[in-house]
């Protein structure tokens, strides 16, 4: 019986820590985003509130708590209030399947550094994150505003289109690893950089990352928001905490997509050199630190992309999703399956991936160049 309580306590502790980190990542990422974007625009970014501007987003968060909740007349009240939750909760739930460190032993008790290791972890991830679409559509529909409805439809079209690519791009990894369990996928990449899936599935990584940008409504795919053109979409009629829920969900999704990319393609918590994890707490700390650093690099890349690329037009968004990324995902899947079926070495897969990227680039450049010349 005491074992039961001990394990329950450990699980609750892990849940609390993971939720705290996921939610706490939001102000940290907002600040990082504003700082990095500032530097890229040759300005300092927020630096007035607290030392080096560190308290800026915390103060912003407090302000938003005290703002008035304005609910427009004629909204579909139950759905209006449910929609933000449908966007936030999946992001929080998904954080439970990401392994952020090895299995450690403290005083004879085995603790796995992830809330749970579902055997269908990756399926769970896709199943739960796709619920976000409901939140988006319902938010647009229940707001009693035609433009919110159109915004919701526009966003859901984007989410659904890119979800297909998102799911297809990891099938190559699944074929390689033969498991949906995220911890097993991470553990199969142990032993150094050349064991990481990015060396076998570079196309998968690129596709997953780009589709992840679109899924999280990040620039250059932030058409749901498009502040300079559309004045927001499905969340126009939301204010105060309900709006913040949409906002938080976006950043938590960036954090969790980065975490899943790290687990699937970049070796999870394994360092890029040959290293055998023991079961001491120190090993756990090494794993968590490496995992955190990789996630940090990916989050920086998200911000970097936002600072660099202009927003796509809607037809460009759809063309990229359906005419470029989806076929590429299929080709990648076939090539991977072919190479696995004939038991080729891993570097051939990597070379094939690099060739696919260069070929796609060449074809796209040609098409765009010809189109531009024709329109002249």
């Amino acid at each position, binding site marked *: 019986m005491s074992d039961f309580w001990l394990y329950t306590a450990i699980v609750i502790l892990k849940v609390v820590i993971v939720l705290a980190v996921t939610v706490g990542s939001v102000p940290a990422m907002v600040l990082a985003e504003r700082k990095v974007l500032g530097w890229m625009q*040759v300005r300092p970014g927020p630096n007035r509130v607290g030392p080096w501007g560190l308290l800026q987003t915390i103060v912003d968060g407090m302000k938003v708590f005290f703002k008035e909740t304005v609910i427009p007349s004629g909204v579909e009240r139950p759905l209006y209030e449910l929609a933000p939750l449908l966007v936030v909760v999946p992001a929080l739930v998904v954080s439970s399947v990401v392994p952020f460190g090895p299995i450690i032993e403290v005083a004879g008790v085995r603790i796995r550094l992830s809330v749970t290791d579902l055997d269908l972890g990756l399926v769970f991830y896709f199943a739960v994150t796709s619920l976000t679409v409901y939140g988006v559509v319902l938010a647009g529909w229940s707001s009693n505003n035609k433009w919110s409805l159109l915004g919701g439809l526009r966003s859901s079209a984007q989410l659904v289109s890119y979800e297909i690519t998102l799911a297809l791009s990891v099938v190559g990894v699944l074929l390689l690893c033969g498991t949906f369990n995220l911890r097993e996928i991470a553990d199969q990449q142990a032993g150094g950089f050349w064991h990481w899936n990015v060396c076998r599935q570079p196309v998968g990584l690129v596709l997953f990352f780009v589709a992840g940008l679109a899924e999280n409504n990040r620039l250059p795919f932030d058409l749901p928001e498009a502040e300079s053109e559309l004045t927001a979409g499905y969340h126009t009629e939301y204010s105060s905490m309900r709006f913040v829920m949409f906002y938080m969900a976006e950043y938590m999704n960036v954090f969790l997509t980065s975490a899943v990319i790290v687990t699937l393609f970049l070796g999870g918590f394994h360092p890029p050199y040959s290293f055998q994890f023991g079961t001491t707490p120190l090993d756990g700390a090494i794993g968590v630190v490496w995992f955190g650093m990789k996630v940090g690099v990916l989050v920086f890349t998200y911000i*970097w992309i936002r600072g660099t690329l202009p927003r796509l037009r809607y037809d460009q968004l759809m063309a990229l999703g359906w005419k470029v990324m989806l076929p590429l995902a299929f080709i990648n899947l076939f090539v991977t399956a072919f190479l696995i079926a004939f038991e080729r070495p891993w570097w051939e897969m990597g070379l094939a991936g690099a060739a696919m990227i260069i070929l796609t680039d060449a074809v796209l450049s040609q098409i765009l160049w010809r189109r531009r010349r024709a329109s002249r």
Partner: protein
Amino acid sequence: MLLVDLLKGFGVTLKHVFRRHVTVEYPEQRRVDAPIFRGRHHQQRYADGLERCVACCLCAAVCPSEAIYVEGAENNPDHPISHGERFAKTYEIHLLRCIFCGFCEEACPEDAIVMGRDWELANDARQKCVINKEDLLTPVAQGFGEYDFNFSNPTVG
């Protein structure tokens, strides 16, 4: 190639991260104003301490936004305030109306009103944005004579 161009773009933004930022962090750092910059008004005195303004009201007449209010009064010959017959009993400028066109300065026959160099005019109340003779005249303690255009007075109000 598309990919190469894309990476070049990423290189540009990454390079700028390490550049020195161009922001002037205002309350601590200040930009040096251009020598010809003119901000809010000042009233002049003669070297003997008497005011130049004779309350002719030309400034108020020429002001396109009607920001100037002048009320004249007769000088007491024993204790004159200005060199003319009249002096300005009240002289108020509504800085929220003023468009800093400088017509008042041009219209003034006595060179009494001049555009000075202050530009920190932000305030927390509208009433404080109406400045009077006290704000406009160089204090006697700071000496008389011409307005020093290299000198920037403290904020009004």
